[in-house]
């Protein structure tokens, strides 16, 4: 990332107002139903200033919860018309995302929908992505559920962000770093609010110090070095830990809907005999009906088998199939699971079991 300069908070809010005034959609942490969530804002005063992590992720602005994929109509003469909705996606700035979200959505989720590995590029995601600038804000502290450092990232990690803003604690100073052409454009829009020309060494020093201070505060830190080898061994698929840890799951799907790397969806065909539409909607592998065949055959009849699939997906399948991290440690699933199913306990136990195997000759 390139050091672009510094701004004060007022400069950032002024830019937000300027952007919304220009018709750019600004998505930022805001209060929705009393909860801090990512949502479109009309002005800077709707942005929540003191927050840790919004409850939802901003993936819904790139991969909507519901999206009409096509409509169809049967005309009187019996002919058919199939229409695609126009893809006139608004220019969007995601302001205030955290590094865990940026890495998960900007890199991992994007790799699912891109055509990079398997040729099938999804323009619905990619075209939205092209018009979206991700402006992340480094965290100054984690909470007890956060574990991004364990996943190889960090509270000030730039992966997936076009712009990264870090508070140094010095008089409200915010350091602005830029990591892409979209980021450059955003920095330019800051105009005179962006102060440049400060002594770079000291600035860099303050900037890394802020990141290091935040890193020290992590409590949920554990070893995952051996987790993938544990999961790569097909014999471990039937390990007792899956049933023990996963039976309590109530398949509410909150983990899936709040997870920034989860991408499962379903198609719903709505309408009647004369016209209708197909809608792409979010789905979850935790729901029982997810894998049921038309014949009634159910490959994952028990709830713990479905959570096993989730764990496998985040810590093995995502990497094997999409070459990217399946989990960035945002902690939402840990924080918000109503029965406290804890994916980190799966990881810790898998790691421990694998270590024991390797130590015992």
């Amino acid at each position: 990332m390139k050091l672009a300069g510094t701004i004060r908070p007022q400069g950032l809010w002024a830019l937000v107002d300027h952007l919304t005034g220009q018709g750019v959609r600004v998505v930022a942490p805001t209060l929705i139903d009393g909860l801090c969530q990512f949502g479109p804002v009309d002005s800077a005063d709707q942005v929540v200033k003191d927050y840790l992590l919004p409850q939802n992720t901003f993936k819904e602005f790139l991969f909507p919860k519901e999206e009409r994929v096509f409509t169809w109509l049967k005309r009187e003469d019996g002919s058919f018309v199939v229409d695609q909705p126009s893809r006139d996606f608004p220019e969007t700035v995601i302001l205030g995302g955290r590094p865990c979200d940026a890495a998960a959505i900007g890199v991992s989720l994007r790799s699912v929908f891109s055509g990079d590995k398997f040729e099938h590029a999804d323009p619905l995601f990619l075209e939205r992505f092209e018009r979206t600038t991700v402006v992340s804000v480094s965290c100054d502290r984690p909470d007890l559920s956060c574990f991004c450092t364990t996943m190889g990232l960090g509270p000030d990690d730039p992966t997936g962000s076009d712009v990264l803003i870090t508070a140094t604690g010095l008089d409200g100073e915010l350091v602005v770093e830029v990591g892409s052409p979209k980021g450059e454009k955003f920095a330019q829009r800051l105009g005179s609010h962006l102060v440049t020309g400060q002594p770079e060494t000291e600035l860099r020093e303050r900037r890394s110090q802020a990141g290091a201070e935040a890193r020290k505060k992590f409590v949920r830190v554990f070893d995952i070095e051996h987790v993938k080898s544990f999961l790569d061994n097909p014999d471990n698929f039937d390990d007792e830990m899956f049933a023990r840890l996963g039976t309590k799951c109530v398949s509410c799907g909150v983990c899936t809907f709040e997870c920034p790397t989860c991408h499962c969806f379903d198609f719903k065909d709505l309408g009647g005999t004369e016209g209708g539409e197909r809608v792409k909607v979010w789905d979850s592998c935790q729901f029982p009906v997810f894998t049921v065949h038309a014949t009634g055959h159910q490959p994952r009849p028990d709830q713990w088998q479905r959570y096993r699939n989730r764990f496998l997906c985040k810590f093995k399948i995502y990497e094997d199939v999409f070459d990217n991290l399946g989990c960035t440690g945002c902690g939402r699933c840990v924080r918000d699971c109503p029965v406290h199913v804890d994916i980190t306990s799966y990881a810790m136990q898998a790691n421990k079991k694998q270590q024991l195997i390797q130590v015992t000759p």
Partner: protein
Amino acid sequence: MSAPALHTAPGAEAANLYVPKLVRIRKIIRETHDVNTLQLEFVDPAHAASFTYKTGQFGEFSIFGVGEATFNISSSPNWEGFFECCFRKVGVVTTALAKMKEGDIIGFRGPYGNSYDLEGMHGKDLIFAAGGIGFPPIRCLVHRVLEERDKFGAVVIVHGARTHRDLVYQREMDEWTRRRDIHMIKTVDPGGDPENWDGEVGFVPTVLEERVPWILEREGKGASNALAFTCGPPVMTKFVIAALGRMGVGPDQVVMTLENKMKCAVGKCGRCNIGNTYVCLEGPIFTAAQVQAMPADQ
């Protein structure tokens, strides 16, 4: 009637890969009381001209207003002007599809998935073993093989069903029985044979084990030169693979198609994975050895 159209709204240049193309049902062949073959042609000649596929691939077939279903493309890619799919009435979508008439329009997305390795089959002795509605993915390959019969060694087909009324592709089987360069063995489960039945009576794996080794010995080059292709209910394929194993045809010489619930068919909806294998991307055609290495998540 003005031609059915597929519009692309302004600004939507890149293909939205979830939108089907329109195909017309050219002909319906009632294979059995609950199994139909559909012959389909593209409504738009431009789509027809640019459509190619490889043997064994599958497609997503949309019944507008009802849903989408996954079927193998059961025709040979060298047939011109149309392609086929074959389905059994099991659920909401297939029941609606079974009610459609010739001339009706449905949607098609595809082709998806991998295909049979025809070059790798050259010179090999081929064993086809399939049951009931498992036969279509085998049928397209048989047709393709017969188009270049001299490139392959011995060819044996064992096709079974519960009763003779459940055997699909009756017409093809009669043709193949008349050919001298392939062995067409049809069989029904014990008790499923009518009077004057001219085929075998017994389960597919049993008949396979009784008849095939002798044919391979006489006309083929031994078990190591054989490739087997099987498709059908898991209980049948399990015993077929075991029988083949006993004949010296190992799991890496057995090719099968895996069925899993699919939606997007392009590796994004997360539904069809077995462990780290997305069936729609890397399959549905796998060797038995590959399937045996997959976790028990299917």
